[in-house]
């Protein structure tokens, strides 16, 4: 490449001595700059420096830090999930307790209702009994009174009947025999 000559016979172009045979006098590339071996030591040296620096930065600072961040996040997520599980269990427990309390309250309420009903029934029974007894007593009294009245009435009827019979007999001109009249009235009333 470096020895290409023009038709004129002189070497063209003039190469820069110091930069080796990699650039021409205008600073342009000759062929592939990648194949210029004069530049290899420089590139290799700086590459090694760069890789060592990156490796040190990564292995000492960056990778442990990112690894820690990821682990911490994983831990936080796990903890949060566990906490959520806990809270869910608690909520279920609370719901159960609530349901149980509700059921208990219902049972108790039913018991109280039943008891109240029984008490009322008992009171009612007592009152009814008392009322019945009173009614019975009153009716017995009334019956007695009625019987008395009835007895009195019968007696009066007898008296009236005897008197009336005696009057009638007298009116008819007969002699009223008190005994006979009484017997007759009694027999008539029996009939």
């Amino acid at each position, binding site marked *: 490449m470096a020895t290409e000559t023009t038709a004129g016979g002189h070497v063209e*172009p003039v190469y820069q001595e110091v930069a080796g045979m*990699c650039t021409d006098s205008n600073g342009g590339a000759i062929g*592939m700059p990648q194949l210029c071996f004069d530049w290899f030591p420089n*590139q290799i040296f700086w590459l090694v420096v760069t890789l060592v620096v990156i490796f040190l930065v990564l292995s000492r600072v960056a990778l442990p830090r990112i690894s820690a961040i990821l682990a911490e996040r994983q831990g936080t997520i796990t903890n949060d999930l566990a906490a959520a599980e806990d809270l869910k269990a608690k909520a279920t427990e609370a719901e159960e307790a609530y349901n149980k309390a509700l059921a208990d309250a219902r049972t108790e309420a039913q018991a109280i209702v039943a008891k109240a009903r029984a008490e009322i029934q008992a009171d009612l029974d007592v009152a009814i009994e008392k009322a019945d007894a009173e009614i019975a007593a009153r009716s017995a009294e009334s019956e007695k009174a009625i019987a008395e009245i009835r007895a009195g009435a019968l007696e009066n009827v007898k008296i009236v009947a005897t008197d009336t019979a005696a009057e009638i007999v007298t009116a008819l001109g007969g002699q009223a025999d008190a005994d006979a009249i009484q017997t007759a009235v009694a027999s008539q009333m029996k009939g």
Partner: protein
Amino acid sequence: MASEATGAEQGAEGGSLVFHPMDQFIVKPLFGGDTVAWYTPTNVTLWMALAVVAVIALLVLGTSKRGIVPSRSQSVAELAYGFVYKMVEDVTGKDGIKYFPYIMTLFMFIVCSNFLGLIPASFTTTSHIAVTSIMGFGVFFAVTILGFVKNGSAFLGLFWVSSAPLALRPILAIIELISYFVRPVSHSIRLAGNMMAGHAVLKVFAGFAQVTAIAPIAILSVTAIYGLELLVAFIQAYVFTILTCVYLKDALHPSH
């Protein structure tokens, strides 16, 4: 070739096309002077330093808040970490995890260099065979030595395909041996070649933009190729890294 370039330049003054697609790959001393000794700070130094800065900015500064709920830069850092970690774990298995920092170093360097190289007027360090071959051969020697240290002579079982018929095994062994020694070459040239070709093509299309008649097409093409190069920049870093993982797996588990 050089005289053609000069001729083209001279012609440029007369209004014709000038192409310098390879000039972007020239190594120059940063602070003047012409000598490029092994220690000279050059544009290679600058762009590698910028790659280091990018890595630190993303993975160290980006994660400085250590948020349980990540910020945007921390998300990207975690994404890169998870991406390479999962790749190492999936390809090499659990016992490959301890080599994760080395593979992460390679991945971060290549991916940052590739993307920095796509900044206009930048210098692409990974387009140089000197750079990629050091990484490729570095991986090759590290993996080979590791294979012998871990498995002793059983590492040679990698070349002796015990599942093949006995008659075929010597032939397969030769093929395996050749393919094994070609690995570092293909490993490094794949990356450098992709980077160099993409950037050279961008320059060529940019050169066509000097002609008014085809400038719109040239600019559209540059845009399209730039998009493609963004994809290639990531994919080549990924390919380099996953091949490193595959070679590492061979060293740790040489049996087929």
